[in-house]
């Protein structure tokens, strides 16, 4: 049985939630952004303390926002594996959905009624 512990590569916060939203807003279809490098599940975990508390919270918001973008159809999410607990988390902009579910005018009409 091996007793060697594989050291995890150093990690840092590369992108904030606001930067991700700003990028999404102006990205053309096919544009790619690496919003994190590391292993999000461990990097967000307070037990491992791979990031300072503030960065961990920002990373949690960032990954939630990336999932939100994927669910709304704004982007695809991909991962590229480099090694043990070392992934590149990529977000690829998609063409904007044409259908609009509701408009502010319809909601204002409902509120007035």
């Amino acid at each position, binding site marked *: 049985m091996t007793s060697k512990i594989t050291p995890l590569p150093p990690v840092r916060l590369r992108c904030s*939630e606001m930067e991700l*939203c700003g990028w*999404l*807003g102006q990205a053309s279809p096919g544009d790619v952004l690496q919003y994190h490098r590391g292993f999000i599940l461990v990097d967000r975990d307070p037990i491992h303390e791979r990031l300072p508390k503030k960065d961990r919270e920002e990373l949690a918001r960032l990954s939630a*926002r990336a999932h939100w*973008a994927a669910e709304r159809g704004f982007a695809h999410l991909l991962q590229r594996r480099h090694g043990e607990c070392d992934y590149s988390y990529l977000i690829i902009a998609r063409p904007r*959905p044409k259908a609009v579910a*509701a408009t*502010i005018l319809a*909601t204002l009409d409902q509120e007035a009624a």
Partner: protein
Amino acid sequence: MALQLSRPDLQLLLSEAHCAAWRLVRRMRLPRHQLEDVRQDLLLDLLERLPAYDTRRGTLGAFAGKILTHKAARLAKSIWRERLLLGGEPVSLDESVAGFARVELIPEEQGLAAFFCQNTDAFARIERRLDLVSALGALDNDDLRLCAELYHATADRLAARGRAPRSSLYRRLKRIRLELMAAGLAAA
């Protein structure tokens, strides 16, 4: 030796600072709501210089008066400089003018977008509306309802009516702004 302030001394310093702030606000014709800020600035400067007070040279009231006069003069100078730089007296956009907030009376051609050389013609307005309609599709129904309510009232007024706590309304607004930004709606 550190100066020990008694309760009457503290009352004296506070009242001198208040009078000096009032004089400055009246002399410079500043808005009433700035009185608190001016008073804090004056008091802070006075408290920083308090260690220099020497009881043998005069009373605490005279010392405070002198310090506050000098600080008020410096504040007045910086206010004049700011007015010269801006070409007039800054006004609050929330100030009520004939029943409307001042911000509602500013036409598009004089707004912030025009100041930063953004396009403000009719085509730009139509494109902005289309972008807005498209971006609003990214919000869920609860957020759309909140946006509709904010069309008629500010977040503070909604909180005062019991719609939701003020802090949670502002948190939701922050989230809505990010979602609109992600949907491609540029900030005005």
